[in-house]
């Protein structure tokens, strides 16, 4: 055991954990909106809208995240037309490509989680609101969405942890996140076990924090 290497690499890895957290939080926020949108589309009665939303979640959940990142980072740059639009400002940055891929990926899983949460809402609740003359929009925003959020908290907590592990793939498109820096240190020092213990420890600590945060929220919103 090379304890000196471990203590030397700790601040570098901690710094990189900041990049991981930034990637995670931005993609989760964007992904939550995408997930909510597609969950609502899934519940739509129009068969085309419904199938489209189902197709989106099927494709993004059935293919590896690595493929998705590579299509967005390497693939989209190939389309000449895109290069001439303002989108290119975003798509030429690996940082934004990674975030787009993560957000679309977590959006697909989130839409499934929210959809099943919506479906477990008892019809009586919605019927009661309707018979009280509450407008449809208010039923959605003030009744269905809050209940769905509570129902989906445990599954969403798992999704946050899975996504945190997913951000490690950012290192494959040159971003120096926690895994990227860990790989760099391993490949320069050839001490994989020491670096794994430190980097893995930081990841586990983040998992631990997310896990407890979700438990706290579950307690707060339980009924």
């Amino acid at each position, binding site marked *: 055991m090379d304890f000196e290497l471990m203590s030397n690499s700790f601040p570098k890895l901690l710094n990189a954990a900041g990049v991981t957290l930034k990637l995670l939080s931005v993609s989760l926020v964007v992904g939550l909106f995408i997930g909510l949108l597609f969950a609502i589309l899934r519940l739509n009665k129009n068969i085309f809208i419904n199938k489209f939303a189902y197709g989106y979640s099927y494709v993004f959940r059935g*293919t590896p995240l690595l493929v998705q990142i*590579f299509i967005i980072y*390497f693939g989209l740059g190939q389309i000449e037309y895109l290069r001439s639009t303002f989108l290119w400002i975003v798509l030429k940055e690996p940082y934004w490509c990674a975030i787009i891929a993560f957000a679309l990926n977590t959006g697909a899983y989130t839409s499934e989680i929210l959809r099943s949460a919506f479906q477990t809402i008892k019809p009586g609740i919605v019927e009661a609101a309707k018979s009280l003359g509450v407008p449809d929009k208010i039923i959605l925003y003030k009744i269905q969405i809050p209940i769905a959020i509570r129902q989906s908290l445990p599954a969403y907590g798992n999704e946050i942890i899975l996504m945190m592990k997913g951000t490690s793939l950012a290192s*494959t498109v040159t971003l120096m996140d926690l895994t990227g820096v860990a790989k760099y240190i*391993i*490949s320069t020092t050839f001490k994989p076990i020491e670096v794994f213990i430190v980097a893995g420890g930081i990841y586990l600590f983040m998992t631990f924090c997310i896990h407890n945060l979700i438990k706290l929220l579950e307690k707060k919103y339980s009924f």
Partner: protein
Amino acid sequence: MELLAFGDTGWGDELFIATLMTIVVSLTAMIIGFLFALVFTPLKLSNNRLFNFIGNSYTTVIRGVPELLVIYLFFFGGSGAIMYVASIFGYNEYIEINAFITGSVAIGIISGAYSTEVFRGAVQSIEKGQFEAAEVLGLSKSIQFYKIILPQVLRLAIPNLSNVWQITLKDTSLISVTGLVEIMRQSYIAAGSTRDPLFFYSFAAVLYLLITYFSMKVINRLELRYSRGH
């Protein structure tokens, strides 16, 4: 379509072999995962504190650390560890383990953590009465396990194991960083030499979807088979 031709002109045959490689690695990893689950599920269910701690550490660490980091650990540390063990037995030559073994073992250990959780859940949801009734009937321990407990565990576990299969299949794409030529690696090579990454990565996505689609069909049949009488 020319890009996908078989033979020297296209990438069809290379991608076909790469697809087989992905399937073989996934199956190998899944089996290695079952072996790990076979060891760690009893540890997690045991009343012994130390065994419990070992079982829980395995599933917590593996499920809390990114797959890519575990793969790097095996990729960079694998041959070192084997050589260290070999040196204890007096063998000091350089040993290189190939990418297939490194990859399968790394993904297998990850898959095993998920399988362990599935089996633990399945065993715990079998009613206590089943164990007691088997005991009262005077069945031997091995018959109790193989004829009473295992069929029920399998029935309960198969739906969740199909999730584990999907996770494992997708995780194999990460082994491409070690140079093993599976779908992802082959697409990377093809994309590099034809400068058409959009086509090849999209095609890779289609291949993964096809594998998922057909494996779900097989799993659904298994599910029917094991839920006869329910």
